[in-house]
């Protein structure tokens, strides 16, 4: 959260064109591309806080909401960068399933080719090598074949999900692995993904007299580790996108690949790297779940690719590429995560309504983003 507040009023991210503009801080704020996502997020936060009697933001509510938000945020960051460069990845959900299967399978049955029992580190590393290779393959196919990434990744959506199922059935005889030992107790590496972070925040809260459970002891001891991973992923993506040459390359690739190539941007390498980045995000998502719950099943990550794209869109990323921001995706993930989870804090509403709310929020955010974008770009 801390990284979301600082740049709002400053002049970060705005150069050339802004020099000529004279305007108040407010009018500059209103013209930021993330403003639509930010407003929707505020409305959702306030509405849910009231409707749930504050339950959604009590110690456990915060932890759990951020657990869901961080999950969404990790994959949506990958999807956002890729969409800015003009591509889609529909294989994110299946990649999550594949990575989860691969890790849990190694932890249960040992490394492939008789390399002996797996540790969380080797299982993760080997899985990451595979998923990055698949990401590279997807990117290479898209770049070489000049087919739409929509089609190529759709193929991998089916391919990877099917492969995951087959591996489970053939090797494990069951499409589910559960009852693995609790690796985060014994391995620092598993704890990095499945453990807790920011325990000090809850400790301080407890010392200040809050954070009490029904018995009067300290209630929650920390956020899920994926919260920190999300912050890291979002921060790195933010820096890369808005502070580096690579970021400019990504925007240029999505805006007009031909003129970008003519100006010396390594368009193909940019696109392939971004497919590998979404594969990395999916693997991170899977690692956090596998090492937290010590389970995996063949349906893991189902439909997550669409949720990732929805969040990127709520965050103001354009479907056609060339426009979007990581900060917007942070707001989008918070909005989407809250809507998907916090509805369950409100007893008077049937929980199944959450999909209705997701749809409403998605449309509202897109309309708002569209009007903001038109204002910024002068009606383009």
């Amino acid at each position, binding site marked *: 959260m801390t990284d979301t507040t600082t740049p709002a009023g400053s002049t970060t991210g705005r150069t050339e064109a802004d020099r000529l503009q004279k305007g108040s801080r407010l009018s500059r704020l209103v013209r930021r591309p993330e403003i639509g996502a930010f407003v929707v997020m505020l409305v959702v936060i306030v509405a849910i806080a009231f409707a749930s009697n504050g339950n959604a933001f009590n110690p456990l509510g915060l932890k759990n909401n951020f657990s869901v938000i961080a999950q969404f945020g990790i994959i949506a960051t990958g999807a956002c960068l890729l969409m800015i460069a003009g591509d889609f990845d529909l294989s994110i959900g299946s990649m999550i399933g594949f990575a989860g299967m691969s890790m849990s399978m190694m932890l249960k049955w040992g490394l492939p080719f008789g390399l002996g029992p797996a540790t969380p580190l080797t299982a993760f590393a080997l899985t990451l090598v595979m998923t990055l290779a698949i990401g590279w393959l997807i990117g290479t196919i898209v770049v070489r074949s000049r087919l739409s990434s929509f089609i190529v990744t759709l193929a991998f959506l089916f391919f990877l999900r099917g492969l995951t199922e087959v591996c489970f059935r053939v090797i494990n005889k069951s*499409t589910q692995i559960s009852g693995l030992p609790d690796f985060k107790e014994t391995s620092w590496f598993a704890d990095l993904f499945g453990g807790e972070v920011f325990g000090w925040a809850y400790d301080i809260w407890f010392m200040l007299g809050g954070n009490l459970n029904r018995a009067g002891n300290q209630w929650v001891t920390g956020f899920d580790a994926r919260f920190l991973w999300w912050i890291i992923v979002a921060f790195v993506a933010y820096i890369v996108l808005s502070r580096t040459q690579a970021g400019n390359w990504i925007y240029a690739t999505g805006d007009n690949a031909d003129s970008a190539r003519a100006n010396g941007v390594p368009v193909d390498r940019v696109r392939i790297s971004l497919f590998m980045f979404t594969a990395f995000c999916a693997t991170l998502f899977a690692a956090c779940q596998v090492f937290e719950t010590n389970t995996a099943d063949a349906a893991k990550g189902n439909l997550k690719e669409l949720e990732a794209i929805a969040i990127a869109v709520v965050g103001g990323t354009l479907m056609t590429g060339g426009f979007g921001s990581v900060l917007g995706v942070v707001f989008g993930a918070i909005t989407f995560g809250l809507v998907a989870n916090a509805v369950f804090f409100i007893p008077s509403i049937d929980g199944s309504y959450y999909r209705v709310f997701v749809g409403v929020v998605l449309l509202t955010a897109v309309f708002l983003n569209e009007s903001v974008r038109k204002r910024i770009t002068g009606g383009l």
Partner: protein
Amino acid sequence: MKKLLFASAALAFVAGAASADRYVLITHTMGTDPFWPIVETGGREAAEQIGAEFEHNFAPSGDMADMARLIESATATQPDGIIVSLPDPDALGGAVTAATEAGIPVITINSGEEYSKQFGAMMHIGQSSAVAGHGAGERLLEEKGEIGRALCLNHEAFNTDLVTRCEGFFDAIGQDLNMIDVSNDVAQITTRTAAALQSDPEIDTLLAVAPHTCEAATTAIEEVGAEDVNLVCFDLSTGVINLIEAGKVDFTIDQQPYMQGYLGVIFLNLYNTRSGMMPPIDVPSGPGFVDQGNAAAVQAQAGTYR
């Protein structure tokens, strides 16, 4: 078309004459459900024991129309028996009737017991969801004396069979149905369950209709600090059995899926080789209960046989 049918029928006849009995198992849902591999193992091992061939087919799309087509193409190969799950009688009835009218003995398993006979199937092997849910409610009432407000955790709110489980349970404990959609994502199952427990502190009983929901629900119960909440689950996994042994889950309902595949093949074989031998009524495969008493014994076989 006629020629093709004739050719394939002749081919099937030749293949059939050359080898042993062949039984086909056709099941619903996409391949991700941990339930069906156990049924498949049951059928395969029964076939091995009697020296028959065994095939398992399912529609990866999960679409009922695709499944009906699978039944039709299985019928076209003239197997010695078809074992089929029947979740949607309207979509699958025609294909099953066509199979039975073609003279192929059919046994329905898992779901659809009310329609089994109507389509000419020999018998049904399965667990009635309403009976199982009801049984779970009765048993919990018996153990606890009285139950406060209950909540059903459903990971597929559109799956009528799972809703029936919840309804049977609430019927037995005399409450109105109280159910939430917890999604299929393990992180969100935990957070949504925790949210529901926090928003309504009067909830003291949870019914989880699947093993992964059950495991995630225990995390939620611990987080909220509501250890006195009763937790009853459906179906088995290694994790659930560990939780039963640790006293965190009261009991789980086992519909003993292995039996559905195993008995299906055995009964069809008896019918074919022992001059039409067949049990006169449907055979229930569940509900079986797994609690602290038998958890250790079930443990060793969880996920493959149980």
